[in-house]
């Protein structure tokens, strides 16, 4: 039975429209939040396809959609390519409205599991040279002057925590989940508790990892994700359909 169910999943049709939408969503978030800076050149279609694990046709369709939204500008000739165009404002309502409450909960659960496991392993396995980058990121966050810069450093901090676990798979999941729900969680935290509280949570996570306190590191990392998810769900419930 289990085998046949697994086979059903294997041979179920791959939805190419969903793939295009996913690529569009990721790039939209990245550009809207300044992870890809205004005017920055995007990787080539071939490289994007390789990095995202989709076909170049999918990438091309996604870029076309982004061009229509004004988020990407394509120039031809030498020095040409696709360039990011920052929009005036990230539309959180629209982005949140696209996700159902149970999807948000599920994304939060998945992310908390990954972030918690990564922090626990990081506390067990990291050496001082793994901890140093965490503190450098937190110091840079304390000095960051723009929200986009702060957001980029926040992403980097969490990826550094995951990498300190020495698990490539957990790190890949962290990166993927950041792309899927990171922007919303970030905005939720800004709304919920502001930067000071977020910074305090980051420091507590880094301290627990540095002290080798695996249980505490896991609990703190899970809470960091789940508190923001709870707030997102509150916001989502208040949205008019």
């Amino acid at each position: 039975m289990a085998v046949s169910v697994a086979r059903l999943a294997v041979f179920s049709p791959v939805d190419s429209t969903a793939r295009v939408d996913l690529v569009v969503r990721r790039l939209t978030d990245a550009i809207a939040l300044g992870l890809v800076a205004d005017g920055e050149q995007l990787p080539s279609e071939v490289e994007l396809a390789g990095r995202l694990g989709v076909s170049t046709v999918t990438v091309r369709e996604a870029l076309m959609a982004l061009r229509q939204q004004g988020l990407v500008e394509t120039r031809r000739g030498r020095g040409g390519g696709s360039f990011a165009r920052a929009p005036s404002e990230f539309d959180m309502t629209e982005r949140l409205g696209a996700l159902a409450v149970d999807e948000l909960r599920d994304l939060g659960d998945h992310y908390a599991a990954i972030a918690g496991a990564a922090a626990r392993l990081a506390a067990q396995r990291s050496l001082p040279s793994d901890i140093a980058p965490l503190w450098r990121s937190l110091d840079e966050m304390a000095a960051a002057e723009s929200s986009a810069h702060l957001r980029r450093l926040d992403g980097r901090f969490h990826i550094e925590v995951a990498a300190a676990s020495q698990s490539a798979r957990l790190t890949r999941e962290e990166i993927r989940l950041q792309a899927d729900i990171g922007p919303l969680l970030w905005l939720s935290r800004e709304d919920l508790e502001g930067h000071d509280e977020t910074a305090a949570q980051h420091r507590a996570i880094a301290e627990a990892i540095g002290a080798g306190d695996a249980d505490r590191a896991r609990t703190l990392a899970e809470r960091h994700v789940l508190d923001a998810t709870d707030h997102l769900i509150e916001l989502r419930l208040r949205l008019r359909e």
Partner: protein
Amino acid sequence: MITRSDTVLSDSAPPGARPAATAVTATSATSAATAVSVAGVLARVRDTAEEVFTALGDVRAATAGRARAVRRNGRGLASDDLAALRPLLFGHLGAIIAGIGFIAAPGLLADAPWYLEWWQENPTGTPVQLLRDLDPSSSAFYDYTHWDWYTGPESGVERTICGPYVDYLCTDEYSLTLSVPVTLDGVFLGVAAADVFVRRFQAAVVPALRDVPVPALLVNTQGRVVASNTARWIAGSVYRGAEGFAVRPVPGLPLSLVEGTGR
């Protein structure tokens, strides 16, 4: 390739290291068998690392040669000049090396303050250039001068081995980065570096480790395990010193071999 990680200095040893001599003075038959197999491990590790450092020696010579030729023509080195390295870089990809290139010291090139001439192997066979946002004011990641594979060579260390670490910026693989300084007339130009996936390095050295009749692990100078013949310490875990184990540096490399002494 890009990491916070463990830069390790040649011939230094991890915490808890004891002089190698204490590990190799035993005279019983078992110890003799151990000594033979340990010599096999050291040879295998040396050969594997040597293959990579020889490639890096080529990259270093070609880069410095290019820089000298351009200077002779009375102009500054530019990113286009480094394209001449490509046939050489491509030739080294594929066996044990997954990525290789030259990382310019900031300000070296006339047309780009930050630059990597960095190529990675690719399942389809055609090498792929790593293109990243290298402007530290817009990227959270790409100030590469912080990473130990850069600071090691920059501070004059001849052979640096970073990792194992999760290379989340290039390949998402568990990797080692080996690097050497590139200089011209004593001036630091940048770093020649290569990425080696840990699983490939292990494929090269674990058969030799398996022949060692006691628990044995290869560690970097901080004690991070690179390869072993025991599930107690596998790649990624940390050897923090243990009763009944002795540490011997691997000659000429920033690595050590830890062996159970049976005592």
